[in-house]
């Protein structure tokens, strides 16, 4: 789960990471008040879950509170990569001597949290990694011991020469590690970590991504979710415990299992169609999930035909058939539905569908070809 910069800042601040003052505003007057409290020049930054805010005009410098209000006025409501800006962060325009990068990610290969630090901060770290890999130092952390003091110090020595700054940076890394572990993060980064002319080391911008699996038992983290950042259909799917991602095609897909769902989308494409979504109803299906899945898919006006692809293992195909039956009784579905079912209780499933005048296929290729034809015919 992505969270906003201002929320990430709050997590870091709570862990004792030194950062510039700053606050979040939803209206220009509030932004103006924050700028007045801070005094001097400020930066007004759009709070959206996408990169490239600066290039999109979502980050503006303001010389005084009035300018801050103007900047907020222009940024709030702006669309950045399809997302509407509802909040801005107002922070002092720091006088900066150097910019470094400090990031911590859960690394698949080492199966450990890995620190990445670079004295070349403020820019995209992937670019630094690609062009000047010698400017990045990586350190896998053994989670049973945590970040050890000498490790933090060695990373900090890679960033700074001045020992006071080295010690400050080492402490910031230890605290960033605490943020990472205490909040079940899959990523926690400070970019840039800056030094000021008077020698202080501060976090200027922060980014935190929380492992979705952590949210089950951490309602406090779940509260950081900003649903306005999600397409409404995805938010509805999430609440219904469905894994759903909207795409641009016209073939709606309802599948059990993430791998099979992806393979189904790929097969739609293979046979000349375009999938409208990824949707995994999960392992232990119940009719209710199927109803919700159909509701969500049919809200997409692009969808011209819907494919069910169910391989019954734990999933009982009769549950799915019943779900389809229930859904169709509850609301009209105006596009053709192609159903492929095989496995557990398939005979019963076929019977249920026949009862409502539908037929089902048992071959995946045949079903995909049929739904692609249906979508094309409708389009």
């Amino acid at each position, binding site marked *: 789960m992505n969270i906003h910069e201002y929320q990430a800042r709050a997590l870091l601040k709570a862990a004792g990471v030194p950062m510039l003052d700053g606050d979040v505003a939803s209206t220009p007057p509030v932004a103006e008040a924050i700028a007045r409290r801070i005094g001097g020049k400020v930066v007004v930054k759009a709070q959206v879950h996408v990169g490239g805010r600066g290039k999109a005009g979502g980050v503006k410098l303001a010389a005084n509170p009035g300018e801050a209000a103007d900047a907020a006025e222009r940024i709030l409501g702006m669309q950045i990569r399809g997302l509407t800006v509802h909040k801005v962060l107002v922070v002092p325009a720091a006088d900066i001597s150097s910019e470094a990068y400090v990031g911590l990610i859960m690394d698949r290969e080492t199966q450990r949290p890995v620190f990445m630090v670079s004295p070349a901060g403020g820019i995209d770290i992937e670019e630094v990694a690609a062009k000047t890999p010698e400017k990045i130092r990586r350190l896998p952390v053994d989670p049973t011991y945590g970040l050890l003091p000498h490790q933090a110090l060695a990373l900090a020595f890679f960033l700074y020469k001045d020992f006071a700054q080295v010690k400050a940076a080492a402490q910031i890394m230890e605290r960033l590690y605490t943020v990472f572990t205490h909040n079940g993060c899959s990523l926690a980064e400070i970019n840039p970590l800056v030094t000021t002319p008077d020698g202080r080391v501060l976090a200027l911008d922060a980014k935190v991504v929380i492992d979705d699996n952590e949210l089950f038992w951490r309602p406090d983290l779940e509260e950081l979710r900003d649903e306005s950042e999600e397409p409404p259909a995805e938010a509805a799917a999430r609440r219904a415990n469905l894994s759903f991602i909207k795409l641009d095609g016209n073939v709606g897909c309802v599948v059990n299992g993430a791998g099979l769902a992806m*393979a189904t989308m790929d097969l739609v494409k293979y046979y000349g169609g375009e999938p409208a979504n990824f949707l995994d109803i999960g392992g232990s299906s119940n009719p209710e999930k199927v109803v919700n899945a159909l509701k969500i898919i049919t809200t997409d006006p692009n969808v011209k035909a819907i494919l069910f692809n169910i391989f019954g293992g734990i999933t009982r195909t009769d549950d799915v058939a019943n779900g389809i039956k229930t859904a169709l009784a509850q609301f009209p579905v105006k596009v053709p539905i192609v159903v492929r079912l095989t496995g557990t209780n398939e005979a019963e499933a076929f019977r249920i569908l026949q009862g409502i005048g539908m037929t089902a296929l048992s071959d995946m290729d045949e079903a995909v070809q049929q739904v692609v034809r249906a979508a094309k015919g409708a389009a």
Partner: protein
Amino acid sequence: MSVFVNKATRVLVQGITGREGSFHARQMLEYGTQVVGGVTPGKGGQVFEGKVPVFNTVAEAVTATGADTAVVYVPPTAAASALFEAADAGISLIVCITEGIPVQHVARAMPYVRARGVRLIGPNCPGLITPGESKVGIIPGSICLPGRVGLVSRSGTLTYEIVNHLTKAGIGQSTCVGIGGDPLIGTNFIDVLRAFQDDPDTDAIVMMGEIGGTDEQQAAEFIKSHVTKPVVGFIAGQTAPKGRRMGHAGAIISGSSGTAEEKLAAFAAAGMGIMKRPVDVIELVRERLK
């Protein structure tokens, strides 16, 4: 023969009295798996299905039953702890079906499990099955056929789809291993490929990957240098957008890394047969078994 499990495997079910655990314990018993015991703290002394003793702790269960394998169906909040417990009790193979364990919990359990010489399959995996001998997990036994093709996969139902094609075409399987869809897993493609390469009763290998990470690319490197048996591969997620998690926590294209294209290129470079569609598995395997 087979890899990892066979008819001698003695299985313990952690979470045997739960909804998932009891359902699948029954399925395993029906399939003929030697389910020798179950564990649910506080329910020690009960008997499951009239024949499987339930214990309070894995240690007690291992002592009483001689179990060597544990299959974990406990909820995600207790699953990491179940891994620690099984590893402590001297189990040699842990199959973790549970989905939704925070990745940092897995990261902490992993070195503990490894240090005790235990193989972990999963988490968030369908388990494995050696057709006709032993099913440990949730792969439907009915779609499998004993034979000489080894399967390894990151997903569940997609595996069933492909196994089903093979079985219907009369091509049996030595062992089917679902390694799981999480970013951190105990047993990866290479571990299973090595086992199949060393298994005298596996003649060909089918490998099903998906977007995210670099496991498939590394597996392809391994195949190029260490696997002499024919390998056929599939990658799910060619139409997936970047930066979105496709159901599985591990199935996500980060930046330019983990795309289906780079994985398929690695497969091609390793001389593998490449399935464009699941059904292609039949012809590709058949050609290579000739």
